[in-house]
């Protein structure tokens, strides 16, 4: 046991990527990337103990920190802290640090952060990236980038969303500042981190991220990524999905609810028994959607199709569906008719593929039906 000292001396200051579990106590410096204040209830006496936890980054790595009994004043995102002595521990395969009463934590200056040269960071490929990775550089092609306005709390912020790809795959990104990314640009990227978003890893870029232009001759073109080689469904599922994948198969099933659905007029969630999950009793507005299972023999994927695609594939508009519902008031009749129309049709789709306990799901950007041979050629009385 060592008493806290005003100036921890004899301790080495290390970068976050040099933290080692089981090593001697060290001093670290890093910027607060995120922080959340909670209260932990002690099991022994039920007493409450405040704790601040979040992520700390110095550009070389990001580690989770836990700060027991933090100061009452809020710790802002972006604050640079120096802390020591700290001992690195490991949780779920990741290095973590905890600040206790022994640790002296003080604000530090921006300029004290290590200057990280992009070239010093380890190079990663898109295929290697997984959630919570950071402190890497990535060479990739901006397949596309779109501006979007989102609401964060009460603020409106402009973000840039898109996809970056290399030869090993494609990954979605969200940039919180305008980094001047352009469709088709080849870039070397550093200072980004990876988070999990809707079952897939996603790159997050912010003001700390740096972009350098590249010649990019060895990178795939944006068109090549968008059109993509056809992936086999069994392989795609085993790979855990993809940001952009092109698949093809035969329609073998239509999953309920498909066809006519009712949506909450406020949030567009589907309404069951006249109830919206968020807004309670509402009068749903009719909409068309379909969940179509395509199969290529190696695996299957559920395509989530919106109204436009459903109307195109079915050849029946929402108005026609509603008119028919007045004739035949059982909506399951039309769901069956949708299946009969699509069963055996060959579809080709490109989009985001995710894997969950329900298997592979594809959110297509484009869907095309092959007409050849898809239309039943029997003139006689067969199942129409």
């Amino acid at each position, binding site marked *: 046991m060592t008493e806290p000292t005003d100036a921890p001396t004899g301790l080495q200051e290390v970068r976050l990527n040099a933290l080692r579990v089981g090593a001697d106590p060290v001093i670290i410096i890093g910027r607060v990337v995120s922080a959340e204040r909670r209260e932990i209830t002690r099991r022994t006496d039920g007493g409450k103990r405040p704790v601040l936890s979040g992520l700390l980054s110095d550009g070389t790595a990001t580690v989770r920190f836990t700060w027991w009994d933090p100061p009452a004043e809020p710790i802002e995102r972006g604050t640079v802290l120096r802390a020591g002595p700290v001992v690195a521990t490991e949780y779920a395969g990741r290095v973590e640090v905890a600040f206790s009463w022994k640790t002296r934590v003080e604000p530090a200056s921006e300029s004290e952060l290590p200057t990280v040269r992009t070239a010093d960071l380890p190079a990663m490929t898109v295929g290697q990236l997984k959630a919570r990775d950071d402190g890497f550089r990535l060479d990739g092609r901006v397949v596309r980038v779109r501006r979007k306005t989102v609401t964060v709390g009460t603020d409106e912020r402009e973000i840039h969303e898109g996809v970056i790809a290399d030869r090993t795959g494609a990954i979605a990104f969200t940039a919180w500042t305008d980094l001047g990314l352009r469709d088709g640009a080849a870039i070397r990227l550093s200072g980004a981190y990876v988070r999990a978003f809707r079952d897939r890893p996603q790159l997050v870029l912010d003001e700390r991220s740096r972009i350098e232009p590249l010649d990019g001759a060895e990178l795939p073109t944006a068109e090549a990524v968008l059109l993509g080689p056809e992936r086999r469904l069994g392989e795609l599922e*085993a790979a855990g999905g993809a940001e952009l994948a092109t698949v093809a198969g035969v329609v073998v099933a239509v999953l309920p609810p498909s066809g006519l659905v009712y949506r909450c007029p406020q949030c567009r969630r589907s309404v069951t028994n006249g109830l919206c999950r968020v807004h309670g009793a509402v009068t749903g507005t009719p909409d068309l959607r379909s969940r179509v299972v395509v*199969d290529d023999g*190696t695996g299957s994927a559920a395509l989530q199709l919106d109204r436009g695609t459903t109307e195109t594939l079915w050849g029946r508009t929402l108005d026609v569906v509603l008119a028919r519902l007045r004739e035949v008031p059982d909506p399951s009749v039309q769901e069956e008719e949708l299946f009969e129309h699509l069963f055996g049709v060959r579809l080709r789709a490109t989009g985001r593929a995710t894997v969950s306990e329900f298997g592979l799901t594809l959110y297509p950007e484009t869907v095309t039906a092959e007409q050849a041979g898809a239309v039943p050629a029997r003139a006689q009385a067969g199942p129409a």
Partner: protein
Amino acid sequence: MTGREPAWRVLAFEVRASLHEERGTGDRAATHLLSPLGARMNRVLMAGDLSAGEALGQADQQPFYRAKLTDGTGEVTVTAGGFQPRALAGLRSWTVAGPALVVGKAHLFKGRDGTAYPSVRAEAIRGIAPEEVRRVQAEAVAQTGERVRLVQALRAHRDPRALEPAPVPAWIAAAEAAIARYPSLDPATLAAPLASVGAPVPRPAASAPTPVSALPAVRVTRAPPRATVGPPSAAERAVEASFLDIVDELAEDSSDGYADLRQALERAAAHGLPETHAEELLNRLEEAGVLEEPIVGKLRRA
């Protein structure tokens, strides 16, 4: 494997050569029919010429339809009962033979003597153009060939990932299971029927014997073969199944738990099974140990 079972692209000869069933455990366990060529089939997608649907069960209470799908490598029985309403409606209205697409569950019935009868319980059927039949069959030929090469590579202790195209991960495990279950079957010989649907026969491994050009006799017997003429055809099997349904139903309705022989024969006749044929069938089922007649004129399941 999570989620939905893929619809394996297989040809009739492979379904008929599949004798081993893997029963899953736990909630909603899936059953798989394992083929010697490494198809772990729960669901299959097949195309070919589908014969007209034939009613077997009692039309009003227990509808059961059957048809035969022929694809150039053999024929497979396709059935649909009350639990497959969509396919049942399809087979019921399938009154003229023609090219069709069938998706369904691979099913294995095992007789008391160990004889296995694979069939397909249809989920859905639809008439398709002949070009589309050829396309589905071509897909099945390509994927079957891939699985044959995979089994050969594993048997020769070569790295399956070196194959082109790279095998789907789930296929490797299925091929290993197939090798363990069918240790003496040569995949190239078995796959010879592929040639009859116009596909190049996969080159056999160096150690494998030259494939015979004729269709191999696919024996589906695990126990010593029966003394009678040979394994019953798919048609006979389906008749057996419907006859057994009749017996079961009569036994259930009767007070003593036995099915009356005369009533059973009458009902069978009402379904188009002549009495002489029914007697023959009865003898075979008794011989196979499926049915017994402990009291004269009274039948029950053995």
